[in-house]
C-alpha cells in the first residue's frame, strides 16, 4: 500500500519536474536581449538599490521556527492517539491531557514573558 504511494508520488514528482522544465525551455522561444541594467536587483525603479540583503533579522522569526518544531512533534504524537481514541478510553484521554497540559504550561510561559508579542 505504501509502496503504491511511493510509486505514485515518484511518478507525479517526475511529471511535475518534467513540466516545469518544459515550461522553462519554452522561454527560448521568445526574443532575448542583453541590456546593462536588466540583471540588477529590483528596487521599485530606483537605479541603485538602497541597503543590502545582508542585515541580520529579528530573533523572533527564529523563535517561532523553534516553537513550530516542538509543536509539530507534539501534533505528530497526537495522531496515533486520535485514531485509537475509543479503544483507549478515558485513560488515554487523561494521558493526552497530561501531555497537552505540560506543553500548554510551556506556551503559557512563552506568553507570559511576551516572547510572542510583536511590536
Amino acid at each position: 500500500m505504501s509502496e503504491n504511494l511511493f510509486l505514485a508520488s515518484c511518478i507525479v514528482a517526475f511529471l511535475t519536474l518534467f513540466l516545469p522544465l518544459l515550461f522553462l525551455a519554452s522561454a527560448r522561444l521568445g526574443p532575448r536581449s542583453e541590456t546593462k541594467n536588466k540583471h540588477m536587483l529590483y528596487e521599485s525603479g530606483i537605479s541603485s538599490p538602497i541597503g543590502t540583503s545582508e542585515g541580520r533579522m529579528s530573533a523572533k522569526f527564529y523563535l517561532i521556527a523553534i516553537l513550530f518544531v516542538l509543536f509539530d512533534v507534539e501534533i505528530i504524537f497526537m495522531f496515533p492517539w486520535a485514531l485509537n481514541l475509543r479503544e483507549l478510553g478515558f485513560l488515554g484521554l487523561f494521558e493526552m491531557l497530561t501531555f497537552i497540559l505540560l506543553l500548554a504550561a510551556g506556551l503559557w510561559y512563552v506568553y507570559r514573558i511576551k516572547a510572542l508579542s510583536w511590536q
Partner: protein
Amino acid sequence: MFDTAVIIETVVKAVIVVAVIAALAGFATFIERKVLAFMQRRLGPMHVGPYGLLQLAADGIKLFTKEDIIPQNAIKPIFMIAPVIAATTAFVAMAAVPYFPEFTLFGYTIHPIISDINVALLYVMGVASVGIYGPLLAGMSSANKWSLLGAARAVVQMLSFEVVSGLSVLAPIMMIGSLSLIDINDAQTGGIGDWLIWKQPLAFVLFAIAGFMETNRAPFDTVEFEAEIVAGYATEYSGMRWGLFFIGEYANMITISVLVSIIFMGGYNAFWFIPGGLMMLLKVSFWIFLFLWVRAAWPHVRPDQLMWVCWKVLMPLSVVNIVITGFALL
C-alpha cells in the same frame, strides 16, 4: 511486487491529474480576474475572444515566451530550483487525494485517486510542509532585501498555521478513526445532516482559516503584499519561473478546497438527485469562489496581528476543541 497494469494505471491517472489541475490553475486566474472585476463593478478582461475567454491563451503565450532572467548576485542553482520545488510539491500532494466516487469505464472499475493509502491526510500535510522550501529558498537566494523579508514572513506564517491546521484536523479524525480520505468521505454518506461541519464547526472554521493562510491568499497575503515588501519572495522572479510559483499557489488552493470538501462537507457523496462527482465539483468551485470573494471583501492583516491571532487565539481554541471532542466522544 507491482503489476505492470498497476504502474500503467498510476501513470495514466497521474498524467490526467497533473494536466487537469495545471489547466484548472490557469483557468482559475481568468476566473479570479473576472470575479474580482464583477465585485468591483468592472467587466474584467473583455477584448480577447468572447467575454475575454481567450485572455487565458494570450497570457499563457506571453508567460511562456518571456525571457528567463536571473539577477546578478543571486545564488544561481538555488534560485533556479526554488520555483520548481514550489510547483512540484503542490502537485505531489495530490497523489493521495480522491476526487470522485469510483466509476466503471469499459468494464473496468476506476478509483479516481492516484494512490489510495491509509495515511493520506498525514501525507498531504507532510508534502505541504516540504513545500515551504519553495518560498524559503527563493527568498534567500535572490540577494534582495524584499525577497529575504518576504521569505522570512512566508516561512514563519506557514509554520504557524501548519500547527493550527494539524490541530484542527485532529478533532474530525478522532470522530472517524481513520486518516484515509476515502474513509472520511464514506463516514458522511447520510446526506447533508451527516456532514462533519455540523459536528465540528470550530474545527471547520479553524481549518478553513489555516487553509487560507497556507495558500497565502488574502486576507493573509502579507507574504507578497505589494505595498510593504514589493512581491515578497518572488520579487526577483519573472517569466515562467514566476509562473511556476503561481501555478503552485493555485494548485495548493485546489488541494485545500478538495480537502475541506472531503473532510467537512461530505466529500463526493451523492446528494438528493445530484451525483457525487458533480457534488464534488460544485463544492470545490464554491471554495475557489470563496477564496476570491474573501480577497475582494477583506482588507489585509498585518503580520503581527496574524501571529497574534494564530498563537494566542486559534491554537488554544483548537486544543480546547480537541479536548471537548475527546470528552464528548467517550
